[in-house]
């Protein structure tokens, strides 16, 4: 299982979207911390150097939770988007193990990003001189609670990704030779599009090219034939 989780983490590391998401989360948290710090001294806000301010600033890292959930979603949906499920399942034929690894990896990613965001929030607070980090039960609770929260949202995102994608896939099959909705043409040498082909492109309707009978549905066209007929 550790090997599987490692593979999932590597996949995330080697996806540019991950880094874009992480950068977005950092910006979001920085903005929130900025707003809190700017409000210091106004009525009803926590005072400079107070425990309340420390908690508020660290708590601002929670605004990155949406991004953590999105990362969790990506852990699963990326496989559909770039059609890498086949190779993933060939390497690990047990679906339950693959999904478990994905949930764990998404949770772990949540914790890692959570730590990063806490550091960013605390760093900004300290650098701008208004936050003192003194160890207290409340602080510890906030940090631990925040990380559990981040782990939860990461896994939850992965779960959502699995659910939504399964539904989408049921409606929209991306397999080559397969239309966006049933019927499926089992022919694999032609790309099928639901749009009618451009004039003059010598189109052939699926009916003509499909070697086996298929059910009628939305109009399908064989947009190109690769290989020999």
């Amino acid at each position, binding site marked *: 299982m550790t090997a599987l989780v490692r593979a999932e983490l590597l*996949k995330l590391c080697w996806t540019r979207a991950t880094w874009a998401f992480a950068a977005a989360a950092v910006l979001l948290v920085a903005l929130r911390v900025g707003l809190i710090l700017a409000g210091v001294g106004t009525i009803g806000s926590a005072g400079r150097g107070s425990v309340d301010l420390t908690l508020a600033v660290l708590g601002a890292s929670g605004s990155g939770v949406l991004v953590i959930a999105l990362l969790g979603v990506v852990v699963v949906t990326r496989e559909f988007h*770039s059609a890498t499920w086949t190779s993933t399942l060939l390497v690990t034929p047990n679906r339950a193990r693959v999904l478990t690894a994905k949930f764990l990896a998404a949770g772990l990613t949540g914790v890692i990003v959570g730590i990063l965001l806490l550091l960013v929030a605390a760093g900004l607070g300290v650098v701008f001189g208004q936050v003192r980090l003194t160890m207290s039960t409340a602080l510890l609770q906030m940090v631990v609670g925040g990380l559990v929260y981040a782990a939860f949202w990461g896994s939850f995102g992965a779960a959502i990704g699995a659910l939504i994608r399964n539904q989408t896939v049921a409606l929209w099959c991306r397999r080559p030779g397969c239309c966006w909705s049933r019927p499926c043409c089992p*022919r694999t040498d032609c790309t099928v599009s639901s749009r009618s082909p451009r004039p003059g492109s010598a189109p052939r309707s699926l009916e003509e090219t499909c070697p*086996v009978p298929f059910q009628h549905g939305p109009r399908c066209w064989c947009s190109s034939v690769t290989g020999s007929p």
Partner: protein
Amino acid sequence: MAAISVRGLTKQFGAITAVKDLSFEVEEGTVTGFLGPNGAGKTTTLRMLLGLVHATAGTGLVEGVTYRRLDRPAFTVGAALEATGFHPGRTARNHLRILAVPNRIPVHRVDEVLEQVDLTDAAGRRVGGFSLGMRQRLMLAGALLGDPPILVLDEPTNGLDPAGVHWLRRFLRDRADRGGTILVSSHLLAELAMSADAVVIIKNGRLVTEGTVADLVGRTGSWVRVRTPQAAELHRALTARGIPSELSSPDEVIAREVTTQQVGEAVAAAGLVVHEMKAETQNLEDAFLELTKEEVSRP
């Protein structure tokens, strides 16, 4: 025990029966061609064998167990299937490393297989920019990671240039000679005829025939072609000996179901001049077309 054994595999997609009660075996140490026209159910069969698609009925076994029961499948079966996606932003090396990690394959294997498929120079490039031929090679590299005794390849020659096809044929032959088992699907027979030991031919999801290449070619015919200025005389002489023959052109006779020895004796007995005599057998492609040509009409 057969390396791969398919027993009664059936797959129903709605009203379509893609594969129907298909059974065949692939012997250890052979290159077996899995042939059939487009849409015959080759890919579906391979996907069922590899546990990617649920079979409606029947089982596919590799080394006696179903693929899904394999703990580290890369060490038993290497598979390269058509339409396997690549993350376009990942480099070739990273793609393989991701495949290697779950099976606990050491990283140095990644560079070894890249070398084997001649992609070392492109190892650090993003897969998104790869040509179809390079993707095929990368897919093959992925299948080789665990150095498995069995390879299952779906249309591996698609997108390869002639040199690539030649290389692949040599590569597979070499692997089989060293005891490996290879099941390779193709709709282009000429590519396989030279390297396969056995073939499994399916059509419309049903088994048409299975056997060795020699067997298959032998079953569908061989003949002796004779070029002679006295074609009509030879034709008469052969007919007199009860050998079925035909005048294919004014100076050529084709004698069927005989050996060159028999024809030679007939020629000598009749005292004829012969310019050329050649024993010909049908090649795999002809045999294949012959076997699959009937009932072209759709049900």
